[in-house]
């Protein structure tokens, strides 16, 4: 079967790739484009480790076929920092030690960034519901929530 030629934007950069029609966007990112920050935890949309944004909307890259990316603007964990400058969500995850093994962390950071773009100052309930699709088996979520709630102040420039 001929491969599909796809043109899209990934982290602001125009990107072209060829893919099989049963490859997911996650497969393309990791195996063909070398963007291995997005993780495959379950491959069935349950764990959120492969979270990306598509035209600004949070989704699981394992639940989207490669050809569907045509013309879309995709955001991955690799596009969250600006050069060497960490995004406030990333720096607060570090500061609060909101990870242990780190496998869920890219997905959680992408999901948290999307949360804070929609709810700049989320309640604990809003944050917990929003992140319910990001599973972490290490932390018990307490430190993750602490980082999530600390990030808005840094984003507003109120703390370093």
């Amino acid at each position, binding site marked *: *079967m001929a491969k599909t030629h796809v043109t899209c934007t990934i982290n602001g950069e125009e990107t072209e790739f060829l893919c099989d029609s049963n490859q997911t966007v996650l497969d393309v990112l990791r195996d063909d484009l070398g963007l291995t920050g997005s993780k495959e935890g379950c491959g069935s949309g349950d764990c959120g480790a492969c979270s990306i944004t598509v035209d600004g*909307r949070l989704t699981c890259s394992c639940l989207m076929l490669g050809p569907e990316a045509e013309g879309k603007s995709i955001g991955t964990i690799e596009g969250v920092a600006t050069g060497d400058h960490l995004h406030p969500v990333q720096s607060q995850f570090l500061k609060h030690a909101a990870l242990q093994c780190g496998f869920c962390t890219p997905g959680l950071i992408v999901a948290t960034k999307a949360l804070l773009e929609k709810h700049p100052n989320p309640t604990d309930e809003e944050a917990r519901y929003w992140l319910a699709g990001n599973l972490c088996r290490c932390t018990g979520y307490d430190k993750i929530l602490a980082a999530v709630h600390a990030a808005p102040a840094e984003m507003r420039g109120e703390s370093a």
Partner: protein
Amino acid sequence: MYSPTYAAPTTVDEAVGLLANASGSARVLSGGTDLIIQMRSGRLRPQTIVDIKNIAGTIGIREEADGWHVGAATPGAEIGENAGLCAAWPGVTEAVQLIGSTQVQGRASFAGNLCNASPAGDSVPGLVAAGAKAVIAGKNGKRTIPVEQVPVSPGRTSLAADEFIYEFIIPKSSGKTADAYLRFIPRTEMDIAVVGCGVCVTLDNNGVCTAAKVSLGAVAPTVLVVDAAAKALIGNKLDDATLAKLDAAAQAACNPISDKRGTIEFRTKVAGVLARRTAAIAFSRAAAR
């Protein structure tokens, strides 16, 4: 290696042609939150995948004279952001937003939930109770049928091989009409309904129910329209006697299976309890209008 043909038509006719002329099995792709998982697990191996999302009208919400037109593949997150639709039909819109996580909401749609044809699809009893219709495109043009006529058994729909759902029409709610949807799951989020219940009622100025539709999910091979439950409500206020009749009618309609989520006895009992609770929400919403 399994490698299906992927097509992303931009017109209805092109999509119908692709479905009609597909060699081997074809599947329509909306959000893919069921289809892609089934392809990856090997449960489904369609030879052709027809992605309908590039067809104008399959994503988006418009309020027109005959009701709310919701594109078949409109994701749950977009439905939840439509303040007008959410205010008009809180039950329908809350139901679709119960499906999966934020990530799944970015993709999951009414049409996918309905055509996956699981008895437990959360958005289905809500759509049915609200009197929503599915607009089905095929080679002879478009036809419109009540949502409850789409699923025929678990995993199967009444659609022909060359048909797909283009959009849904949810009627305009007027006067003291309101809906509600509740489901029972053993946890707070991210689970599949053990029982789901949609109720839509119209009240007069004295709080007496003049019209009702009651729908149950996950207690039979397909979504149920429970006329006896609606009859228990019509002509009555929401008092204990009415609730008891509603509960009994809901339980009597159940024909569930026992599985890891619940036994036949449990599902039947919960259907009655959920019918009471859902009706109470629908009555209070209608009374407030």
